[in-house]
């Protein structure tokens, strides 16, 4: 068996490179997108004023220098000052982050709590009407465009049935529709995967042995099936996190949810580089850290993966 440390080091290195690449791409794209200064000043501002603001923001220096400064600041955790809000970009993003985390975590917990039992139930009742109905719904949840799902929920549950508010953030009732919209894809994916993972395990020899021993069906499911089906479920859970972050951009726009997804879009329109960079960097960091942890869990669970 190979050592665990080289595996860890390799993974860390790759995570670091990915993070660096993401921030570099964002830097390049945002710098290409044009000068933010005219957006900050009144249209009739004198040229001298434009030059002064440009110098103040460091935008008059050559691009490689700006890039160097950007990387050096990044290493110190300094994302610069927001051009639009005129305060440190990190503070701006931090204020919006809570709303996104609230929405994302609710969506994720809702999805996982509903999906695993649904998938398990579908697998146990394979090829019955219940199974077909659940998997049909999962199929719709997986292929339906997020933005239209949101619109449908607003139309049916908010405007027609008047059960939930159409937009904004407030009490738990505001949270239901965005969380359902955002979680739909995740829920559908986990349900389908749980079903197939459980089915695969149910066909294994050791399940037959357990049954032949006279172990009760409940015990077979609880002890042998779920435990062995857990590995693929854990993996997809990590991957789903990235999908959730991407979906947050759309969901927050549809429901006017004051999170970092909507902030990022608005900041792109405002050419507020520091805020965009900070948002994308934090999102990528979260995604990379979570997947890094999952890789580690995986490496512990299944030593074959390390040498692979």
């Amino acid at each position, binding site marked *: 068996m190979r050592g665990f440390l080289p595996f860890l080091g390799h993974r860390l290195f790759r995570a670091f490179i990915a993070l660096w690449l993401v921030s570099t*791409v964002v830097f390049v794209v945002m710098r290409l997108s044009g000068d933010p200064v005219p957006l900050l000043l009144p249209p009739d501002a004198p040229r001298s004023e434009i030059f002064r603001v440009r110098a103040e923001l460091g935008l008059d220096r050559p691009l490689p220098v700006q890039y160097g400064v950007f990387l050096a600041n990044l290493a110190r955790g300094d994302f610069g000052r927001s051009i639009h809000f005129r305060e440190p970009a990190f503070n701006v993003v931090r204020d919006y982050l809570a709303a996104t985390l609230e929405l994302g975590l609710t969506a994720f917990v809702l999805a996982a709590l509903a999906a695993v039992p649904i998938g398990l139930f579908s697998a146990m009742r394979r090829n019955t009407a219940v199974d077909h109905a659940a998997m049909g719904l999962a199929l719709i949840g*997986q292929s339906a*465009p997020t933005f*239209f799902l949101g619109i449908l929920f607003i139309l049916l549950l908010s405007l027609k049935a008047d059960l939930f508010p159409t937009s904004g953030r407030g009490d738990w009732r505001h949270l239901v529709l965005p969380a359902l919209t955002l979680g739909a894809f995740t829920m559908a994916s986990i349900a389908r995967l749980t079903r*197939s993972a459980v*089915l695969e395990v149910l066909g294994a020899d050791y399940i037959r042995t357990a049954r032949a021993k006279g172990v009760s069906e409940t015990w077979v499911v609880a002890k042998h099936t779920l435990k062995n089906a857990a590995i693929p479920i854990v993996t997809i859970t990590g991957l789903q996190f990235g999908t959730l972050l991407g979906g947050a951009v*759309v969901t927050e726009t549809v429901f006017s949810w004051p999170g970092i997804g909507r902030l990022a879009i608005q900041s792109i329109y405002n050419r507020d580089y520091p805020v965009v960079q900070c948002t*994308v960097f934090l999102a990528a960091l979260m995604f990379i850290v979570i997947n890094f942890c999952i890789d580690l869990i995986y490496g512990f669970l299944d030593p074959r993966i390390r040498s692979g």
Partner: protein
Amino acid sequence: MASSIPASVPAEAARPAARAKSRARRRRLPWLVVAGLGFVGLLTVVALAAPLIAPQDPTRQSLRGRLGAPTVHGTDGRAHLLGTDHLGRDVLSRVIYGSQVSLLVGFAAVVVGGVLGSAAGILAGFSRGRMDAVIMTLADAQLAFPFILLAIGIIAVLGPSFPTLVVVIGLSGWVAYARILRAQTLALRSREFVEAVHGLGGSTTRIVLRHVLPNVLSSLVVIATLELARAIVLEATLSFLGLGIQPPTPSWGGMVQEGREYLDSAWWISTSPGLVLMATSIVVSRTGDWLRDLLDPTLRGE
């Protein structure tokens, strides 16, 4: 990433008799797939023949016929089977014309992503070493953050246009091809027949074109189908955010956005294109799932 999870894994796959049976079951065309292929065919015909089929000019406005409910006899004496929008344009005609944008952008993006991704994947698989590491790290980095943010950034820089949209959506999908083709190239290049060709003096280009590509063709078809569904949805999403095809050209995502304000009074503006989009996405990805099970069950793990 969407719908890459198998719908079912036969539990008794280990037993030969059962395996043969399940293969036979897979070969027989399920009605859903027949319906799906029919739907895609129909959509293509509708997109190609839009000027002949559409009852009205999709950009013709009518101030008196605004926000009209679906009817066979509108105030202007014409039939509006799916109603009219906030500018009095016929929604059915706009949905019909909208299919042109969806399919055109979808297919073009799949070609762009497929060519780029396959080239990168085969290159990575063949060269291994440093080139492989660079390509795969790029792939990891792209998967590491929500691509839609990058897409929005690029479109904000270059301005929304048809070519930009195709390239951005195509770029968003290259990783799927690259990963699978790399794995298959790696597996193929150590096979005897490839070594034999190499030993006989066959060039790398020849090996790739004559021996690797034909062997990975079925995987390519499967990924391309799944990617088509994703590309169509991404185009609609960008159009919904105002970054896709610009008005007055009708696109499904843009129509859903236009109808959002009138959801309470004129629900048909948003729901008509949205439901067609949803059906297209479901049907195309379901067809992709089925193709995968039929042609290449090994892709399931991806």
